[in-house]
């Protein structure tokens, strides 16, 4: 019950007019970012980080997390009304959300989406509240080899569990590590990989990379498709809203299942996108009438939305407690934490309990506020999408580049953002996963430090990753298992085929 008391303290800190104003501003900006094509949650958070340099960390994290919730909601709005997922994680919402809107049930679809998203998020925060104390206790036993093992596990799960080619995941991730290595070597203090370019001494900021990869790259992809907004006019009717809210308990099985899937995928680095697709698939598999899916089945909106938000909130837990973010957006936020001078990880819970618990408390309030605000402002944001693209397009471009410049006021960053933009476009079109690259850029230095410190402990023997403790051995074995999962999977499949083929041949 210690967690509960801490949480109450958090509520007391957050409960002020200033924090509420920041929360509302964050949610509204987030919805805007989620609605606009090309600006997603990771990118939006990156754009805001330079503006938080002068804020105190608690207000700053409230602003960033609120923006994240807003962006998740904004993404669902465009999925339902325009059949354009504002966020990759709301792609699954278009399958049934858009057909519902076409049938004139836009209000129901939106309300169901927002309410189930809210339920998912609150479920996620509750899980965080309950688990955080335990995870921290667990993480306090960690030293360098354990930390390296956890990082390795995170990265291996991207390679082994990803949907695309594992080699592409390796390329993308390793490039991220390489970018992180550029500049000053924190342990030895000398320059590396700058190739004589003085502007590279400060390193390549992951924020620039995120703005390029997610912002400019996404815009190029959108442009290539030829942007068309065939929006459905949404007029929110209060009666429909109530009806939809009252119908929500009917989907309790779907809600619970999706929330669990979401939490799992959020804590492990599966991320919200994978969670929403998985949850949609499960909802369809377990549904009594499968024909309705894809044609406007309400459960098809409830399932991905719940999982998406549950995963989004749960991704914050490993970030705070272990320093291992569970999604690209959480990775960016963690970068922000480090810029504010906080070190994510178990010590954060001990050194700055006020920060941790007010973050968690603000997540409860921010999500409730986001549901209310998003319902109230849907018509407004739908109207923004009707502004011609020849105005809104350049505006988005300008905001992205201004954001890139603000990080450190360097001209080179503008060019870097452009190059990362082209890279993002190419990589995304060729199915290279982008999230591992961002994660590697944020975690690169910490991973390397953990590795080098372990090597110093063991005087250069890799054996330390198995002999230091049973904990580290377990994590390492799990990591290698995940890494070679595609290989193991195909061997098992071949064996099965061989077994199946043998009697047939006879």
């Amino acid at each position, binding site marked *: 019950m210690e967690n509960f008391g801490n949480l109450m303290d958090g509520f007391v800190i957050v409960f002020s007019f200033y924090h509420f104003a920041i929360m509302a501003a964050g949610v509204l900006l987030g919805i805007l970012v989620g609605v606009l094509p090309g600006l997603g949650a990771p990118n939006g958070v990156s754009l805001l980080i*330079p503006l938080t340099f002068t804020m105190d960390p608690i207000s700053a994290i409230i602003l960033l997390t609120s923006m994240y919730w807003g962006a998740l909601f904004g993404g669902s709005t465009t999925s339902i009304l325009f059949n354009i997922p504002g966020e990759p994680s709301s792609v699954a919402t278009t399958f049934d959300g858009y057909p519902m809107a076409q049938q004139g049930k836009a209000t129901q679809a939106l309300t169901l989406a927002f309410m189930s998203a809210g339920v998912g998020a609150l479920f996620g925060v509750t899980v965080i509240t309950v688990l955080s104390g335990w995870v921290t206790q667990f993480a306090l036993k960690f030293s360098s080899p354990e930390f390296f093992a956890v990082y390795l596990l995170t990265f291996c799960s991207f390679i082994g569990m990803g949907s695309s080619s594992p080699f592409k995941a390796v390329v993308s991730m390793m490039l991220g590590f*390489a970018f992180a290595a550029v500049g000053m070597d924190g342990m030895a203090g000398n320059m590396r990989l700058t190739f004589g370019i003085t502007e590279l001494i400060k390193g390549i900021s992951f924020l620039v990379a995120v703005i390029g990869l997610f912002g400019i790259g996404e815009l190029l992809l959108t442009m290539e498709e030829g942007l068309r907004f065939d929006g459905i006019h949404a007029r929110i009717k209060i009666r429909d809203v109530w009806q939809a809210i009252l119908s929500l308990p009917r989907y309790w099985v779907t809600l619970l299942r999706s929330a669990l899937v979401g939490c799992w995928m959020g804590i492990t680095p599966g991320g919200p996108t994978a969670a929403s697709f998985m949850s949609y698939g499960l909802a369809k598999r377990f549904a009594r009438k499968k024909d309705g899916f894809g044609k406007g089945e309400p459960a098809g909106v409830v399932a991905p939305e719940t999982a998406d938000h549950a995963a989004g909130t749960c991704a914050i837990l490993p970030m705070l407690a272990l320093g291992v973010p569970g999604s690209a957006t959480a990775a960016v936020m963690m970068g922000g934490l480090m810029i504010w001078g906080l070190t994510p990880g178990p010590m954060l819970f001990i050194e700055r309990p006020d920060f941790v618990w007010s973050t968690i408390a603000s997540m409860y309030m921010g999500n409730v506020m986001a549901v209310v605000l998003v319902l109230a402002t849907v018509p407004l944001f739908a109207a923004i999408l009707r502004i011609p693209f020849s105005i809104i397009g350049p505006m988005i471009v300008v905001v992205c*580049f201004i954001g890139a*410049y603000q990080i450190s006021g360097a001209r080179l960053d503008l060019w870097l953002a452009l190059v990362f933009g082209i890279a993002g476009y190419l990589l995304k079109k060729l199915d290279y996963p982008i999230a591992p690259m961002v994660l590697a850029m944020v975690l690169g230095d910490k991973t390397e430090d953990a590795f080098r410190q372990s090597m110093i402990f063991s005087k250069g023997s890799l054996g330390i990753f198995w002999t230091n403790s049973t904990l580290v051995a377990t994590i390492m074995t799990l990591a290698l298992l995940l890494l070679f999962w595609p290989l193991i999977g195909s061997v098992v499949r071949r064996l099965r085929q061989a077994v199946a083929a043998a009697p047939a041949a006879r």
Partner: protein
Amino acid sequence: MQNPSGILLQRVTVEIAVALVAAVAGAIICYGSLEIGTGWGDAGPQSGYFPFYIGLSIVIASCCVLIESVIEQRRRQQVFLTREQGHRILTFFLPMLGFVAGAMVLGLYVSLGLYLFGVMTIQGKYRIGKALAVCLSTIVTFYFVFEKWFQVPLLKGPLEALLKIY
């Protein structure tokens, strides 16, 4: 839907190109690490130790991607970019490139004004007066939001120096 002549780029071409670029990048990283030492120094692993293996794994993995995509190509051919898509990309990309290049010389404010104005009048077919109004109000809004409210100065050019705005 698409006639064969409308194809600008085959997917396999781009796959190979990207894999080669990645492999070269990996090789450059290896080279850069070798310069600073990849072995065991006085204080444990040297600076180049970690990046060297990173570079090496990029080279190996991108070669695997290369082989993979050539094999995949035999199974099915995919189009990367049609002529129409290429056109759309360029009409979006070139003005953006102009904006960044312009910002280097003229500063962000002037460059963003010109960029917005150009796209609105040429691509959006807006009247000059309306486009001008939108551009100027955007510049003023950005100026107050960034310089005054958040106090983060943006890149400025000769025009700002002339007007004595810092």
